Structure formats: structure tokens, C-alpha cells
């Protein structure tokens, strides 16, 4: 089985994700151009970080209509594992595979730094390698990572155990310290931090390895 990595015009973490999955973890990958529709033979699909379609209109708003994402809906509905990192998380919310929205950071800064995260894996397939309440460090790099959702939506996320990653020290004003959420079924995860940047000892941390390793069973 292979992992698909979606490439939009403006994606810029697609090769980093491939390096982490293939180079560091030995998992086979295939790039999926945004106009492709063939997801056959894939066990997991990653939407990488970057600025899809220049982030025109809103982050992820144009990407949502990419042909590859029409197929991704069916893929996710059939239980396929889907991971959205940073811009990929923004795309998943625009697409409606995850609830809520990501808005401009509270203090307007583009934040590029390591953050401490508290993991509550719950049903999330991607996080089964982590302990309940485990604290890990992953880098963030975003200008629009402040998670927003209405009070009913937030209550639903809490009930479903969907808030699987929270910031230890909230850097961007996200509601309920949300850094990442998972759907109730456990197969779709979106997060603002970059696990692919924490898979090689040269980059100063390995806490992203277990997350990406979960892509193939």
C-alpha cells in the first residue's frame, strides 16, 4: 500500500512530507496532482502545508473545489486515513470533512516556532502511538491557525473526544487551545503543527515520527 501526497499549486511542504515518510520512515509515497482523480491503491492521503492557490479568498477556499478532493470525500467516507497538516487542515475544514474554521492568529504574527502539545488520542487512528495526556514538541509555522467554532460545535467536539491535540501554551488564540482535531470515526485528522519537520534527528526532534508512521496501519 502507498501513501498519497496531494500537491496543489502553492503547496510547499509536499516534498518535506515525502522525505519524512519515504526517507525517514521507509513508507512508499505517490504525489497526487490536484487535477488527478485516481486514488486507487492508496491507504492514506496527506494534504501538506503551504499556500494552496495562493490562499486567495480564504485559506483552503479554492482548494476545496479541486478534482482530487472530490475523490477524497469518498475515500474518507470509506474509512481511508486522511491527514491535513497546516494548510491541509484549513482545506479539510473548508471541505467539510472537519468542522470549524482557521482564522488569523490573535496577534497577527506569522508564528514559526516549536510548541508543546498535549495529546489525547481518543479514537484517532493517527495518534495511537502516543499515550493519553502525553506531551510532545512539534514545530508550527502559520499565520492563520486560530481555530474557531460555535459553542454547540465545540461541545460536540468535546463530547466526541475530537480535540486530540491542544497547545500547552496557546500561541495563536485558538478556542479551547485546539491544535488539531479528528473526526468521530478516527480516520481524518487535521492539525496546524508540522509532524514532518520532527522526523529526522538533524531537525531537533522526533515526536512527529509516530504520527506519520501510523499512515500505513
Amino acid at each position, binding site marked *: 500500500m502507498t501513501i498519497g501526497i496531494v500537491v496543489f499549486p502553492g503547496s510547499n511542504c509536499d516534498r518535506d512530507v515525502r522525505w519524512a515518510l519515504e526517507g525517514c520512515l521507509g513508507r512508499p509515497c505517490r504525489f497526487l496532482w490536484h487535477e488527478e482523480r485516481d486514488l486507487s491503491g492508496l491507504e492514506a492521503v496527506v494534504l501538506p502545508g503551504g499556500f494552496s492557490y495562493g490562499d486567495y479568498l480564504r485559506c483552503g477556499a479554492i482548494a476545496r473545489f479541486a478534482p482530487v478532493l472530490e475523490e477524497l470525500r469518498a475515500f474518507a467516507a470509506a474509512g481511508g486515513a486522511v491527514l491535513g497538516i497546516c494548510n491541509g487542515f484549513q482545506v479539510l*475544514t473548508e471541505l467539510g470533512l472537519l*468542522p470549524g474554521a482557521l482564522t488569523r*492568529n490573535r496577534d*497577527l504574527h506569522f508564528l514559526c516556532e516549536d510548541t508543546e502539545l498535549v495529546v489525547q488520542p481518543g479514537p484517532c487512528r493517527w495518534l495511537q502511538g502516543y499515550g493519553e495526556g502525553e506531551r510532545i514538541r512539534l514545530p508550527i509555522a502559520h499565520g492563520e491557525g*486560530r481555530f*474557531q*467554532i460555535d459553542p454547540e460545535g465545540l461541545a460536540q467536539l468535546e463530547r466526541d473526544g475530537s480535540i486530540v491535540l491542544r497547545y500547552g501554551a496557546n500561541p495563536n488564540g485558538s478556542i479551547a487551545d485546539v491544535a488539531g482535531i479528528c473526526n468521530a470515526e478516527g480516520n481524518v485528522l487535521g492539525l496546524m503543527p508540522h509532524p514532518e519537520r520532527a522526523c529526522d534527528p538533524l531537525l531537533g526532534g522526533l515526536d512527529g515520527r509516530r504520527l506519520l508512521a501510523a499512515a500505513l496501519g
Partner: protein
Amino acid sequence: MPLYNARVKVSLRPSVLDPAGEATRAAAGRLGVSGIRRLRIGKAIEVDLEAPDRQTAQAQLELLSDRLLANPVIEDWSLELAEVG
């Protein structure tokens, strides 16, 4: 076919923090403009659209506004429509 002109205004919902608006409000104070109680930044989108009648134009633009131009999770939108030719 008649041509319609629409102006769609997209604004952040009142409950959503607008840090860019807050920063602009602070700059307004430094410019010497006082008394600003509220300053929110949104978008205005101009659309010219051909449609067989006003009702169709309205329906198309509502779909466009609700599904693409605005994200209802965080934004409200309003629409002004006029026949121009």
C-alpha cells in the same frame, strides 16, 4: 440575456475576533482619529453575471456567496443586486 451587477459584502461574524481590524483601530488612534467604537475589516466582491431573469441571478449569487465567497462558520455575507443591461 440581461446583465446583472452584484456587490457581495463579506464580514467576519460579530463573535469572531478581528485582529487586523483591532490593529487598524489602534493606528487610527495614532493618526489622531478618536471616537471609533468599532472597526471591522471584510471584503467586497464585484460580480457581473448574465442570467435569464432576476430570480435566477439572485439564486446563482446566493449559492456563490454562501458556498464560495464566504465561509458561514466565521463570516456573514450580504448581497446587492442590480440589472445593468
